[in-house]
């Protein structure tokens, strides 16, 4: 038996000035199921709430309708009020007679009529309200960070420092990411390795961090608080438990291949550490170039290893772990310019390099020991041209977006050329110079004062002539053609998402934008969350950014993870979809519609013609469902319904509106 109480609020004169509150009360008394109706000057005030509680007790009310301001304003307040009075908090409906009646209408008679209609609609819905209960799901107090660049390291350290367990998975054999490849960082010119390697060491020694290098995430299941993640540890062929990292094997290995870390400018042996200060500082064998593993003949490293840690029989291993939260820090790669820019030679000219190759070259521990040289002949270039926006802001060939960090590192590169090579010329071909950031514009100005020549315009063609490279372009400021003759050309190429992010994002159910960057939940207000609960973004996987922004975002993601994992249990929203397995035909249309992957088909024991059978029916995962109701419309037999907004309730509302 429904016993509905209706409470109409004056809101001072906010409602009462335009709506005849007494009339609404009188009308409400005639609605089906309504046993009590009253008005109040301020329903949300302490006495107003007390009056509701008192009426619930005195009149034995079991459904409550409040005609007041928007439910977006006080729904939570009144849910708590009726819960205090012993009712289930979801047995409440609110008729919005302030924002949607008294404030937008002037005719008192018509406004009152509309207020009565809204009250009737709310009462009709309330009559079909059912008790709903929040359930709790336990939270695994361990976070997974995918990617060991500066973003992943910062996030892992922040979470671990808060006292929570973290597993950091990195696909390379060392953490450090792109930042450790760099020489100096703008605008302070402090050495990149000097500020990132101590972080790497701290991380590897942190008691709360489990470091899994040379590993990849291969499967992600579960949901917020309860992810089940399978991690593949690639075969290292070196037993890191006994390896001392002496490096003897690296010096004797006969197989030399192009070094990925040095961006193709140097060589590395098949058994190698990623770089000198790698963490963990122990080598792995690259199975594609090792002579023993490819041809079966060699085995030198095994013979000379003083502790006998080489194991050619090593296999990939898979482990499955549980996590409460995931931070994606998969980072970026540089766009492959060789396929896009035929006018720059498409990779045929040795003396055209990328900005990251320049970084390796100018790095004291790089392949040239910090000397800027021409890759073709090893000579010191006397003039260098830097071309910005190669792939960025180029809708026709590359990407429409700005890669954000290039203007600043180009200024740094030009500065380094002028500083390291006495008498050298540095030219920069640019479209715009964008230097928003602390101390950034000052740095750019300093580079100009150093003598860097900025030419506004794009380079349309580069070709070699003798030992030189001739670059043809336009100076749009003087409206003239320019021909630059330089020894070296550096292309400052666009950032693109790390290709491995696509697979990882798909596994977790995180969306990607038109360029493949991982999609944040809201571009302004939820920049580190994703639309999948418990999954957060850090660094350039979300979009191009420089190191300060990356670190800030990583710490923000860590704060979100800490906030989540510090709870013991997670309360779920009870207003979610629910399947009636008896009605469900198991067609699976709802699965395709659900944006959260919250619905799956499960076995359901049933009877058919007197026989016991098993059939598939849809089931909603309460941890994943967000309660949008899109699935309810897709269901042909009407087996799936949204609690709190059931089909019956909405139909009752429509009926009540029409009388």
């Amino acid at each position, binding site marked *: 038996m429904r016993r509905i109480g209706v409470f109409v609020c004056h809101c001072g004169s906010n409602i009462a000035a335009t709506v005849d509150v007494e009339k609404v009360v009188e009308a409400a008394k005639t609605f089906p199921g309504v046993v009590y109706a009253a008005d109040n000057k301020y329903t949300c005030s302490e006495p107003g709430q007390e009056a509701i509680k008192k009426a619930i007790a005195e009149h034995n009310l079991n459904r409550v309708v409040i005609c007041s301001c928007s439910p977006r*304003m006080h729904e939570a307040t009144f849910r708590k009020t009726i819960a205090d009075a012993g009712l289930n908090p979801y047995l409440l409906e609110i008729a*919005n007679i302030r924002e949607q009646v008294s404030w937008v209408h002037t005719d008192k008679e018509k406004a009152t009529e509309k207020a009565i209609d809204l009250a009737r609609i709310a009462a009709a819905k309330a009559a079909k309200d059912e008790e709903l209960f929040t359930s709790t799901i336990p939270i695994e107090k361990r976070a997974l960070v995918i990617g060991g660049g500066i973003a992943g390291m910062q996030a892992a350290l922040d979470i671990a420092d808060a006292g929570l367990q973290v597993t950091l998975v990195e696909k390379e054999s060392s953490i450090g990411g792109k930042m450790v490849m760099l020489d100096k960082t703008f605008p302070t010119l402090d050495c990149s390795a000097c500020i990132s390697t101590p972080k790497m060491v701290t991380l590897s020694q942190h008691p709360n961090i489990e470091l899994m290098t040379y590993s990849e995430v291969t499967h992600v299941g579960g949901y917020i608080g309860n992810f089940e993640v399978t991690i593949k540890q690639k075969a290292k062929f070196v037993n890191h438990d006994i390896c001392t990292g002496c490096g003897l094997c690296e010096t004797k290995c006969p197989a030399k291949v192009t070094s990925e870390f040095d961006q193709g400018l140097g060589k590395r042996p098949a058994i190698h550490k990623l770089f000198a200060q790698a963490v963990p500082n122990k080598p792995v064998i690259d199975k594609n170039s090792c002579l023993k593993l490819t041809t079966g003949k060699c085995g030198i490293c095994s013979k000379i290893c003083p502790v006998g840690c080489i194991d050619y029989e090593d296999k990939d291993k898979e482990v499955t772990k549980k996590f409460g939260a995931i931070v994606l820090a998969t980072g970026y790669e540089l766009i492959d310019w060789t396929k896009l820019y035929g006018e720059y030679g498409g990779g045929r000219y040795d003396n055209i390099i990328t900005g990251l190759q320049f970084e390796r070259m100018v790095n004291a521990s790089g392949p040239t020991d910090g000397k800027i040289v021409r890759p073709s002949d090893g000579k010191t270039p006397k003039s260098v041209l830097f071309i910005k926006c190669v792939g960025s802001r180029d809708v026709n060939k590359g990407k429409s977006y700005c890669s954000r960090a290039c203007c600043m590192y180009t200024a740094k590169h030009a500065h380094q050329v002028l500083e390291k090579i006495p008498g050298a010329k540095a030219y920069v071909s640019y479209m715009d110079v964008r230097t928003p950031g602390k101390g950034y514009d000052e740095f750019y100005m300093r580079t100009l004062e150093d003598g860097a020549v900025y030419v506004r315009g794009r380079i349309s063609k580069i070709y070699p002539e003798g030992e030189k490279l001739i670059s043809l372009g336009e100076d749009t400021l003087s409206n003239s053609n320019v021909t630059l003759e330089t020894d070296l050309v550096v292309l400052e190429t666009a950032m693109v998402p790390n290709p491995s992010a696509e697979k990882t994002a798909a596994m977790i159910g995180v969306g990607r934008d038109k360029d493949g960057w991982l999609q944040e939940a809201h571009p302004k207000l939820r920049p580190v969350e994703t639309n999948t609960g418990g999954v957060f973004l850090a660094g350039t996987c979300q979009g191009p950014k420089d190191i300060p922004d990356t670190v800030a975002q990583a710490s923000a993601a860590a704060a979100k993870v800490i906030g989540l994992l510090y709870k013991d249990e997670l309360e779920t929203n009870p207003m979610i979809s629910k399947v009636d397995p008896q009605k469900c035909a198991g067609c699976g249309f709802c699965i395709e519609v659900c944006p959260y992957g919250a619905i799956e088909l499960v076995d359901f024991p049933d009877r058919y013609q007197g026989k016991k059978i098993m059939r598939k029916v849809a089931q909603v995962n309460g941890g994943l469902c967000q309660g949008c*109701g899109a699935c309810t419309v897709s269901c042909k037999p009407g087996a799936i319904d949204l609690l709190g*907004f059931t089909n019956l309730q909405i139909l009752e509302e429509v009926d009540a509106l029409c009388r």
Partner: protein
Amino acid sequence: MSLEEQKQVPENWEPTILAFCCNWCTYAGADLAGLNRMKYPENVRILRVPCSSRVNPQFILRAFQKGVDGVLVAGCHPGDCHYVSGNYFTRRRFLLMQRFLEYNGIDPRRFQARWISGAEAGKFRDTMLQLCEEIKELGPNRKLREVK
């Protein structure tokens, strides 16, 4: 009811318009219109739904059967859905439904969809004004109406 009677519009007739508004954008936009004291006709009754994709075509049919003169489904702008992709479903369903209603003799202007964000109070008011005017022009809805 004779054909003549059907065409007659009763004196002082006011249309009843039902608006399904998603909780995150359009309902918030309607609240903001109130906060800014914008004025629009009283004919509109708003039903709050979590997402525009919650609106089942069944609800719309029922509304027309019960004598509603116009129905609006309104949600977040495409691409801005609080639930990622809900309004894309709404958009497709709306187009199908509008054609279905037209096939059944209901003027497509009686069933409209709009994307109104939580900040677009002005757009909300303008939509209400326009909708009321259009439906007043069309007169009472007598198609699909249940025989009493």
